């Protein structure tokens, strides 16, 4: 990493002078403000970006309402150029239900953390899925309550140290993690269920495709995409090691893939 230093640094403070096309913008179209307050290396912005991009690409910008849960991602709820209804902690699926029932023409989606969806709001998402509500729920799963400082959630994997499982999550005392997407996939009302991750650029792209699929499937019923995100702060792991940490711990239990797709058959 020292060697390239001798190479000249390319100027990057202005667009190139010679003919070139912008192939990816730093600020996604529907995210209004660049300077959000999430931690360095946080995985949530990438997931939210994927959702915002998918909404734009599917032409849903003018017919979409995003319902946000309470967690770190709430910082984005007043930051998007998509209509937003902010819900209370855990309650987003019901709120989205109220929306979609009164306006079936609108695409209602939720953005929730794992604490929001699998702890406080487990019942909400399962009932919404069983009802086959025409909504898509996105769950940013980092295995901790990020916002409150990194405590154990219902998805925290065994052995993981958190603020309130100081010796690591122990099945005997703290129980087992819930694989939310797997649980939802067993319900009759769910039509598309997948789990992605944002630890690598390739996974970000793959997740983006899941997001697109889910938003299309939602016409037929309930869709869910769980996205594994890094939380270097809550995990007390260096940003540079957090992607690896996720792959080695969190993603081992919560494995990536399409768990249900009633439209396109079952595949991984």
């Amino acid at each position, binding site marked *: 990493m020292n060697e390239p230093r001798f*190479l000249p640094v*390319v100027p990057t*403070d202005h667009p190139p002078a010679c003919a070139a*096309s*912008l*192939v*990816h913008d*730093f600020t996604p179209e529907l995210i209004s403000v*660049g300077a959000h307050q999430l931690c360095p290396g946080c995985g949530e912005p990438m997931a939210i970006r994927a959702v915002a991009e998918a909404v734009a690409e599917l032409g849903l910008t003018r017919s979409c309402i995003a319902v946000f849960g309470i967690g770190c991602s709430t910082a984005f709820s007043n930051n998007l150029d998509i209509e937003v209804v902010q819900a209370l902690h855990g309650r987003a699926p019901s709120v989205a239900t109220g929306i979609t029932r009164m306006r079936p023409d609108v695409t209602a989606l939720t953005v929730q953390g794992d604490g929001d969806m699998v702890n406080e709001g487990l019942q909400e998402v399962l009932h919404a899925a069983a009802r086959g509500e025409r909504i898509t729920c996105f769950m940013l799963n980092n295995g901790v309550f990020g916002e409150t400082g990194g405590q154990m959630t219902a998805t925290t994997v065994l052995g993981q140290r958190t603020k309130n499982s100081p010796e690591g999550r122990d099945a005997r005392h703290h129980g087992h993690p819930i694989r939310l997407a797997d649980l939802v996939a067993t319900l009759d009302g769910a039509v598309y269920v997948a789990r992605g991750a944002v630890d690598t650029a390739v996974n970000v792209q793959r997740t983006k495709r899941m997001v697109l699929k889910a938003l299309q499937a939602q016409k037929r019923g309930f869709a869910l995409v769980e996205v594994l995100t890094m939380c270097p702060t809550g995990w007390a792991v260096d940003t540079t090691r957090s*992607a690896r940490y996720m792959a080695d711990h969190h993603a081992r239990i919560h494995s990536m893939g399409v768990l249900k797709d009633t439209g396109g058959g079952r595949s991984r």
Partner: protein
Amino acid sequence: MSAGTLVIDTEACKGCELCVDACPPAVLVMTTDRVNARGYRHPELLPGCIACKACTAICPDFVFQVYRYHPSEEDTR
């Protein structure tokens, strides 16, 4: 020599270094001597960008714009 290039909004960067790991040709390196207003080191681009967009995909702070040089121009480089 480079298929593409970047615009880097260095002030938006929080120095997480995810982009450095993500860049396939390893043409992103962190500053060692300079920090932005918030005190964070940030990436600089070395020649050899292939405009693969991995850095934008992974950057949590929306720091990058990726440009691909037009084919005709590319020859001239």
